[in-house]
């Protein structure tokens, strides 16, 4: 087993290690760095602008011509955000929904992915195809019936219903990523554990799960971000102000502030973006690998 793993890791590495004959200097290289600078500016300056605006005073934001760097830093936008809207409640709701959805999705996804990769039964094939199909179903297509069903069950404005709904819509992605992870883990380890007296389920929990941690992390981060920022279902199903989550809450604030208090809206944006970025930075390596696999490989 050990040898197997070494070989499979060593093979692509030796291919990659071959140096490519490319000029290290010269006008082509110069052009590449120029283009890179442009790409980075377009990708990231809007986000820099959010942060800069959030800390500017209202007078400075509407001043013409606009200042780039705030003349004086102020927290008044953040204070106003919590004063003029139930932003604290949006924040709490989103946090509850995102954490619970992530836990449920990772747990159920882990069980189902293990079942799909390790066993060959007819009903499993059916579920596998159903999840492939569900992965591509855009939320807008099931929005109307789901809204009807949940309203019929008097479950609109219910955070728990939203959690279950999110889990269902994010499971196909979790299965997609986790299946490829479980495929990469050899069965022999489990078999050895079972010889040592573990049940199959015990071997799964003690042997397979620890090895799938990178996959579980990347699944978890994507699930959290998706649930944290979801707009369509939340804005349709959550109608009372106390059950609103961040995305519809912030959109509502955009409507209400009418002429736009950009400072307050950008302060809200900063708060929404910070956890996403923090998680991304922490798990960057797993995420990029997981995204590449989840998107096009099974």
């Amino acid at each position, binding site marked *: 087993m050990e040898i197997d793993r070494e070989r499979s890791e060593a093979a*692509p590495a030796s*291919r990659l290690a071959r140096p490519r*004959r490319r000029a290290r200097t010269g006008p082509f290289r110069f052009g*590449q760095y120029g283009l*890179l600078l442009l*790409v*980075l500016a377009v*990708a*990231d300056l*809007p*986000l820099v*602008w959010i942060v800069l605006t959030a800390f500017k005073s209202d007078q400075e*934001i509407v001043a013409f*011509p*606009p200042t780039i760097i705030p003349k004086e830093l102020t927290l008044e936008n953040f204070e106003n955000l919590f004063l003029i809207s139930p932003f604290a409640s949006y924040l709490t709701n989103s946090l509850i929904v995102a954490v619970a959805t992530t836990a449920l999705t990772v747990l159920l*996804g882990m*069980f*189902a992915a*293990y*079942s*799909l990769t390790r066993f060959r*039964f007819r*009903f499993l094939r059916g*579920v596998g195809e*159903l999840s*492939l*199909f*569900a992965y*591509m*179903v*855009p939320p*807008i*297509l099931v*929005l*109307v*019936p789901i809204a*009807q069903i949940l309203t019929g069950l008097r479950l609109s404005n219910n955070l728990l219903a939203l959690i279950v*709904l999110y889990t*269902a*819509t994010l*499971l196909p992605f979790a299965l997609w990523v986790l299946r490829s992870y479980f495929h990469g883990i050899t069965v022999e380890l489990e078999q050895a554990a079972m010889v040592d007296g573990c*049940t*199959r*389920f015990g071997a799964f929990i003690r042997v397979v799960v620890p090895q799938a941690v990178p996959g579980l992390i990347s699944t978890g981060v994507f699930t959290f*971000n998706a649930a944290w920022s979801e707009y369509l279902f939340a804005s349709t199903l959550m109608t009372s102000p106390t059950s609103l989550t961040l*995305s519809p809450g912030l*959109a509502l604030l*955009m409507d209400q502030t009418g002429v*736009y208090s950009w400072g307050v809206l*950008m302060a809200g*944006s900063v708060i929404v*973006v910070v956890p996403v*970025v923090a998680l*991304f930075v922490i798990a960057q390596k797993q995420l*990029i690998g997981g*995204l*590449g*696999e989840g*998107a*096009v490989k099974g």
Partner: protein
Amino acid sequence: MGGGLSDRQLAFLLILPAAVLLVAFALYPFVVAALDSLFKINLLTRDRTFLGVDNYLRVVSTPAIQAAFVRTVIWTIANVTIQVGVGVVIALLLNARLRGQTLIRGLVLFPYMVPAVVIALVFRFLFNDLTGLVNVLLQEFGVITKPISFLSSPATVLWTLIVVNSWKYVPFMVIVVLARLQTVPGELYDAASMDGAGRFAAFRHVTLPWILPVLIVATLLRTIWTAYDFDIPYLLAFGGPLSASTTLPIQIRTLAFGQQQIGLASALAVCVAILLVVAASLYLRAYRTSENRMG
């Protein structure tokens, strides 16, 4: 736990919760939509009048829906073309062994992570007629003499949305293509350069064939997702002005929740779903072909 279970029982128990959720929230809603599409439904009294295929005839004959369909086609083709083109160029750039790779990759992927509502807010601000930075800068550099109303004019709104949406999703293409680029065997380039191939020829005959399977699948996925994208177009322009940015997903929601025409909205959703099935079968076929080619 799991002590006396056979493999079959364990497999069933582990898959059960996921299967129930998928049936309840993916399959069942489809059946409900298909049934609803045959009725006229009064939301208050919950009365249902059977209409047969009338709703479908109205889907095809309603000018607003036809216009939304055309807009969706423009929206999708423009988005996907930009995303694939720019995505491949940036992926090649990032694969060219420049300094600071990890940081750069993170910075490039950033827009993909940003929630739609935040994107909507910041681009509404940047593209604002009066105080928006884009108009200020364009005037400053003398490109234009008076502000462009990017989001508030029917002539420009859809194209502005396409630019913003591409801004968010180009990173997705970059990461997918980049992952594939990093597996190109170096020997292929050596062989190409021994044959005297220049940069362009090497791209055309080595790189492109290598990334093509992944590119096809990613393009089809993006096509499907873009066609049904709701958040960014809706939050940036709410379908307006004068319906100029109402694509089919926005139309479905407006019909269902704005005009209370559940039956008609369901019929439209079913029509869109049929288009989805066609696209999905193309996707599955391309996926299998590319899997085979990848070996």
